[in-house]
């Protein structure tokens, strides 16, 4: 993430420039540095790439965690059913003995 900060230009020089108009510029305008379209496009491309990676990672994590919980939940349900069947079997055996 730190490499993205390379494109963040320090604010102070800009502010300093805004207050002092450079010679040769039209009156009422100031030169803005570090905001040229190419840099902005590059920065947005980086941001979109990171956003896609994070979204993709999140979907993979949701699937992986979902699968783990589902497996254990299904096995728990199978054990529960087996226990119920055994209780019924035991009751049938006891009824036969009576």
């Amino acid at each position, binding site marked *: 993430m730190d490499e993205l900060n390379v494109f963040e230009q320090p604010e102070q020089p800009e502010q300093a420039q805004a207050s002092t108009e450079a010679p040769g510029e039209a009156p009422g305008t100031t030169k803005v540095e570090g905001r040229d379209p190419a840099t902005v496009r590059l920065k947005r491309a980086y941001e979109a790439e990171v956003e896609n*990676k*994070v979204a*993709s*990672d*999140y979907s*993979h*994590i949701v*699937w*992986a*965690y979902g*699968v*783990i919980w589902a*497996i*254990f939940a299904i*096995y*728990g349900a199978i*054990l529960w059913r*087996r*226990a119920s069947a*055994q209780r019924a*079997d*035991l009751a049938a*055996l006891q009824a*036969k*003995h009576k």
Partner: protein
Amino acid sequence: MKYIPYALLVGAAALFPYCVQRVFLHTPIEAEMGTAQKIFYFHVPLAWICMLFAVICGIAAGVQLRRRSERAEALAVAAGEMTVLAGVGVLITGPIWGDATWGTPWTGDARQVSTALLWLVFVAYLLVREYGPPNSERIAAALAIFGAIDVPIIYYAVKIWKTTHPQTGVVGSLPQSMWNTLFICLAALMMLSIALVWIRAAQARLAIALDQAWIAADTQQRAAQPA
């Protein structure tokens, strides 16, 4: 003793939300793999649990072969089921993680293939146990022992062959915060798996006792009937 598995289940249920909170809020994001690396905290403990119960199943099956012990038989069946269960988890979460980080879910490397082999052997073990003819438990026990032998192959696969999996020492090289999270997740999954194996082994023993009781009841009934 009867309440130990239920106490473990309660402990695991209490620990799981803390694990998830810790994984996502208190453990740093790995620099190279990004957020997808969070799968690691359950994938690796599941793999360890799969291998541990494969070894336990193999040993219990060996004891069952030698001593005809019902306790060992029940433990072998329960451990075999846990191996298959954890194996499913590993074989699904691994490719999901691989797809996110390697760009492909399956590279066919030695560790993946040997883990899939272990899983198949234990599926075969359970199928033979469940649907095999009488006395097939000896063949099943042999399969479980064969499966247990695969465990060291899985462990050393990354050292013997060139694989996309990291080396075995990678866990030791983790930062302290990741290491702590991994072992808390391992504790939660271990508590859950021990509880489930305990309950399943008790069910297997009860099933054996019920079978014997039904046979005894039928024999008694036949003996009581007039010829």
